[in-house]
């Protein structure tokens, strides 16, 4: 049994966030990560006959993405802060632990929780992610020390994570009835 092209697209898109985070952990470059993701995704769509089922697809995407990431690191300018292979290996089981089954609900909860942030934390999140500011630019934009900028974004992350977890446990976004 193989997956249809439509199945590949659906499952692949559900995996997009985890896979991009995984690739970034290897290549340490957003653009290379996007390229590797696209190459991997294109290959999956093209080679549907190689994919047996959803579980196989997730494993296949991961292995292929890692191979292509390594290939990209060999052929492109490499960031000086690429993690060692031993570190990448040690992270593998933790990627599995990330729950992507509730992906849509997580995104909906994230949107809701974003609105629950304090104005100050939301400002940091917006500057970081809407304007794409690095920590240094963020510090300059807010007039705060660099440490404060990073810690504020980290605090916003953690607040969002708690909120998402609580919201999912309450079952709010599983039905989508109160989607914001």
């Amino acid at each position, binding site marked *: 049994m193989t997956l249809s092209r439509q199945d590949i697209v659906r499952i692949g898109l559900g995996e997009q966030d985890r896979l991009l985070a995984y690739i970034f952990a290897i290549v340490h470059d957003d*653009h290379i990560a996007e390229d590797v993701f696209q190459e991997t995704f294109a290959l999956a769509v093209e080679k549907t006959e190689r994919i047996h089922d959803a579980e196989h697809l997730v494993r296949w995407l991961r292995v292929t993405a890692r191979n292509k990431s390594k290939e990209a690191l060999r052929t492109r300018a490499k960031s000086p802060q690429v993690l060692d292979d031993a570190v990448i290996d040690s992270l593998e089981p*933790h990627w599995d632990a990330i729950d992507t089954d509730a992906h849509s609900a997580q995104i909906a909860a994230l949107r809701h929780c974003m609105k629950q942030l304090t104005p100050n934390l939301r400002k940091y999140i917006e500057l970081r*992610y809407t304007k794409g500011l690095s920590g240094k630019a963020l510090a300059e934009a807010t007039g705060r020390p660099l440490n404060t900028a990073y810690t504020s974004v980290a605090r916003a*992350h953690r607040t969002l994570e708690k909120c998402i977890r609580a919201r999912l446990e309450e079952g709010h976004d599983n039905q989508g009835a109160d*989607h914001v």
Partner: protein
Amino acid sequence: MSDRNHEFDAIVLAWRDGALGDEEFAALQERLLADEAARAAFTAALYRHRQIQRVMLVEDAPGILEATPEVPDDPQPESYPIYRKGYEPAANRMRPHHALAAIAAALVIVGVVVTIALRSWDTTPSEGTEDPTPPVPVATLIESTGDLTVPHGYADEGADYAAGDYALSSGRAQFVLTNRVTVDLQGETRLRMHHPGSVYLEKGQAEFKVPKDATGFTVHLPDRSHIVDLGTSFRVEVDEEGRAKLRVLEGSVAWNATDTADAKAEPIVLVAGQTALMIDGVPTPTANPGLVAYWPLDDGPTGATVTGADDVIDDPDHPATDATVEGEGDTWVEDADRGIVLSTTATGNLLAGTQGIRGDFTWSLWIKTDELSHHVVMGNRGGSNPWNKLTTVGLNSWATVAPPESDFGVADGDWHHMVVRRAGDSVAVYIDGSPVGKPVKVDSEQNAPLHIGGDKIFGERVTALLSDVAVWDVALTDDRIAALASGGPVVLPEPNATEEPTLEDRDQQANQSRQRVGDKD
């Protein structure tokens, strides 16, 4: 490490930015190898970062951003030091003053690097670390004929631009992204480009041509759905209310609605020629893909001399091609079966424009005549080759072997439905819903103006009543042709239409069609 904490997350974020010093980076690696909780926190932080990045790509932040102190502009694109290998931006030719600036910047960076190297490991990112990841170009501006606003500078053709918001107030602008995706903006359009592989179309019209190795290119939309390329070209329009319309020009794409919690629908895969709208959170193929022109030929009033005929279909690619009259003698008449119709004579015909058709097409019309002749019922001969010419006895095409002429059986004084359909390199004729004769081979594009009811140049005008002439830029299916022949409407009701069309009442259908001008598919 028993639990995640802000400080460690801050270090991960700083690593993500490439802002850690060497010792800090080494310490991070050691910690990840030694501490399982740190590994869990690390992967969770990167995953959450990605999710927030995606959500924020399509979120507006009115008010807050404006109230935030402005960040100094980044350097001009030419001075960005980081380019992806194998990518040579057109504008990456450093000018003398830029070279001096680069040397100065390099000295500053070297100094900072030395400073960083001397810093000891801390649990928080280093204060004052030079940001080593300035904006990287994501797009090259190829052409702009309108008023274009780009991030970090002026809109210069050939220049490279970083991630940010691109706003076109009028005209057209074409970009090539670093992954060779071509983006054409048309009219008032706002596009947010964060990565070459992922953009957000906030408003307006954009056409994307995606090379095979960039499959997976994603367009996010205001309704929180996203379109994923599967190796193709496609056009997306987003109106003022954020409603999106997708037209696939080549290949196929997937439209995914799973970003919305209330839309559990599977992504739909659309192929060339198909159009879809987002309806109640679900991508829905439209009912009239490829319908580019429709002349109901009921303009009237009865008895009036024909001066032209209204094409009730219009869209950006196929502007309405209202027909004009050539010659004289054609009139509007009342028919017992079909209401007001065109009575065309041996001295007049209609001339409609081209529809920009380059490949497959379908012509459809109703005819009532007793003339068995080589005179043109509908055709595009005259002025340029190649052409097709439909008569009551056959179909002729330029540079092809004409089929054995035969009596199509339409010259009996009753109404008949005629269709010419090109599918690939073959053109076939359908009479009353069934194929007749032998298909004709064609090997080139046919895009000359259409003649309806005759051909002025060659004086080949048919005497007949004509009604409901329509053109599609796709090959209609046999079932669709059969439905037309059995009296079905040319314009099918869209999925979101609240009123069912009245099949029996052709006048009402034509009126409904007129109301859809600009919303053909």
